[in-house]
């Protein structure tokens, strides 16, 4: 593929949106976690929740800032690089993004200020309400984004007039069944991200025998939550597969690397897909399983890619591998969550350093799974921006030059690398110092004696709630 403004714009969008999604998926999860902590603190008055809240708020602040600045890019990129798309689908996508900016962006930004700087300036109840507002804002944000993206995946509720998409039914657009399987899938991904990051932090302190009380709360709450949410996520993943199977057969065939119609269909576990020869190399497949996965029957007929003209097919390798990566990460997370919960319930988790180490190293998994999922969905949607109706090639801004787009791509790349690496470093520093650095004058509680100064190196873990 030559270097065209189209190609560069696609790369730029993929780069900026992949970078962006890391932060919302983390902050939606952490906002919910903060909400839980502050609620528990208000109810139980237990100091450990307040310490954890202050600690995670610090981390939330950094990630939230990065999410905001990279989100502003997204709000403008539709116009800068995809002016044809935003002109013809603006009547539908525009209002959805307006709702996003009002109900989410504005809400969370306003109350984020209160969260970070207003503890002493507002009543505890108002503070708790502000935490709820921030959590609500982050979740609403993902809702509108998912409505918008789902409309691009499975457009409904519109007519085409003069080449423009005119909305006819907002009820159909918002209550599109596709939205209601994809939105939960995204929110669950975010909650899982939060849960694993919390559990991993707990495991890290546990391994260092620091912060016994805090690490216990983090490990248990993170793992319990994950143990319930991972199976739920797998269920919603399956429902997502159903809509793709029904509405986007070419994407489904690409995910399965199925080139020809098959009955009964086999499931390709691994292969090197070859677009040019329309075949797979080094294929490992299981007969019947393909039909079972796609239609929950053993002998269903499943569609292959060669049913579609070459111009209407997505690239195969990216959806194929990304999907498998997502599933693999999901299964590892399931194993860790269940095993961890089992050990936590039997109070053997503290002794099993190997499991703790595995939980610690698991924190990148939910991020990678989320990214892999988005790559499957978005690359699988190609060659369309609005599925089946508007091609990506017809969506790009016609006035862009290669040199201008290349310049901005490089500038975005350098900028994001700088802020991403420094942001990660900041979060790492906060985590390394731990809760003490945030609330150094820890109020003494009977459960956590400050016998060893403020370093909290007490290895005791007796009877701390919950």
């Amino acid at each position: 593929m030559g270097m065209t403004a189209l190609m560069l714009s696609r790369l730029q969008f993929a780069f900026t949106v992949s970078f962006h999604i890391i932060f919302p998926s983390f902050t939606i999860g952490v906002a919910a976690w903060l909400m839980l902590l502050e609620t528990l603190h208000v109810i139980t008055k237990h100091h450990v929740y307040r310490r954890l809240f202050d600690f995670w708020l610090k981390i939330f602040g950094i990630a939230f800032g990065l999410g905001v600045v990279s989100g502003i890019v997204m709000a403008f990129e539709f116009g800068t690089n995809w002016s044809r798309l935003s002109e013809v689908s603006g009547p539908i996508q525009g209002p959805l993004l307006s709702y996003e900016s009002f109900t989410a962006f504005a809400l969370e930004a306003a109350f984020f200020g209160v969260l970070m700087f207003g503890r002493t300036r507002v009543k505890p109840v108002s503070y708790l309400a502000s935490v709820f507002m921030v959590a609500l804002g982050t979740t609403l944000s993902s809702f509108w984004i998912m409505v918008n993206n789902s409309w691009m995946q499975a457009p409904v509720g519109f007519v085409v007039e003069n080449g423009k998409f005119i909305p006819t039914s907002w009820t159909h657009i918002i209550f599109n069944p596709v939205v209601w399987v994809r939105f939960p899938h995204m929110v669950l991904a975010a909650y899982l991200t939060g849960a694993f990051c919390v559990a991993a932090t707990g495991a890290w302190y546990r391994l260092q025998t620091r912060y016994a009380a805090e690490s216990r709360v983090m490990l248990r709450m993170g793992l319990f939550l994950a143990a319930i949410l991972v199976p739920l996520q797998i269920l919603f993943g399956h429902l997502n597969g159903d809509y793709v199977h029904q509405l986007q057969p070419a994407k489904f065939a690409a995910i399965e690397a199925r080139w020809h119609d098959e009955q009964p269909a086999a499931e390709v576990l691994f292969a090197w897909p070859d677009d040019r020869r329309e075949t797979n190399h080094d294929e490992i497949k299981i007969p019947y399983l393909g039909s079972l996965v796609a239609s929950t029957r053993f002998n269903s007929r499943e569609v292959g890619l060669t049913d579609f003209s070459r111009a209407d097919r997505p690239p195969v390798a990216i959806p194929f591998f990304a999907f498998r990566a997502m599933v693999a990460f999901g299964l590892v997370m399931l194993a860790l969550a269940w095993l961890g919960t089992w050990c936590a319930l039997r109070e053997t988790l503290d002794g099993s350093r190997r499991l703790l180490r595995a939980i610690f190293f698991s924190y990148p998994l939910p991020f990678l799974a989320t990214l892999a999922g988005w790559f499957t969905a978005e690359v699988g949607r190609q060659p369309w921006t609005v599925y089946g109706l508007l091609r990506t090639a017809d969506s790009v801004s016609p006035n862009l030059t290669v040199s201008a787009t290349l310049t901005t791509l490089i500038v975005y790349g350098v900028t994001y690398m700088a802020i991403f690496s420094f942001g990660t470093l900041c979060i790492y520093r906060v985590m390394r110092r731990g809760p003490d650095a945030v609330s150094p004058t820890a109020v003494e509680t009977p459960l956590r004696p400050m016998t060893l100064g403020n370093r909290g190196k007490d290895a005791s873990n007796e009877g701390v709630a919950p």
Partner: protein
Amino acid sequence: MNTLWACAVALSTCLYVLLDGFDLGVGMLSAFAATDEVRRDMMAAISPVWDGNETWLVVTGTILFGAFPLVYSTLLSAFYLPIIGMIIALIFRGVAFEFREKSTWSRPFWDRGFSFGSLLATFSQGVVIGAVIRGVPMTAGHFSGSMFFWWSGFSVLCGFGLCIGYTLLGACWLAGKVSVKVDVTAFRCIPWLMLAVSGFIATAFAISVYTHLQVMDRWSTRPYLAVFPLIALIGLACLLHGVHKRVSRLLFRAASLVFVAAFATLAASFWPYMIPFAVTIDAAAAPPSSLRFLFWGIGVFVFPLTLVYTGVVYRIFRGPVQGGYRDH
């Protein structure tokens, strides 16, 4: 309905200019902070609100996308480089708030990112405004200019003009807000900034007359437009009075009045064009079904609510700040 949404765009743009205007101005002023302590005081004066302020940029962008997709797609793609320059600048100034606190050896870098980011973001906005005033080349309803059409002496002048204007707003916000040291600096530089702003307006006006900008015709056909510059003059007078008598509460309000008047002058001169003399409000408006959907949710409910809680947040953080908000 079309007019209503045009007013909503105008309102949110105006709010953005006022709110992010003062914190971008503080950003530019921070370049002149003598010590780290002064700089920190300056940033403390805006840290709880800057994020909410910047949101109005996104809000303006997405209302345009929703209600006037043609304007959104045309202007953003036409101003590709200045818009992305502005975004990159906003990224650097946005992350500086968190990063500078947590950095050691790299702090000067983030501080510079904060002040230069504020400068570049403001300059880009000024350039875009200047180029829009001069006119965006359009044929058959689509943009037909080059990648650099926005670059002209006039637009660069507007870029610098906006920098001075925002700095004035920022200085007015800081006066009486933070610490004595910052106060003195703010009071001292306000008169000079006022002088510079007046100089800029005079030059821009002279150039407009000299090059026969189309917008000047509007002034002969709509003499009532003169009311806005008069309001601006009243604002400037209040500002002078405030500086003279050291009434810090008056300053920001007076400066805001000047900005609102300047904004209204431009908006009223171009009415009913959204992209001057090429695309009207009615031509750019989204279909009624889109606007109705926006109206019943955002127009009736969410927009007013947003204004209310923005006000509430400003009330929470009103009054002087001593030593920042972080000491809880």
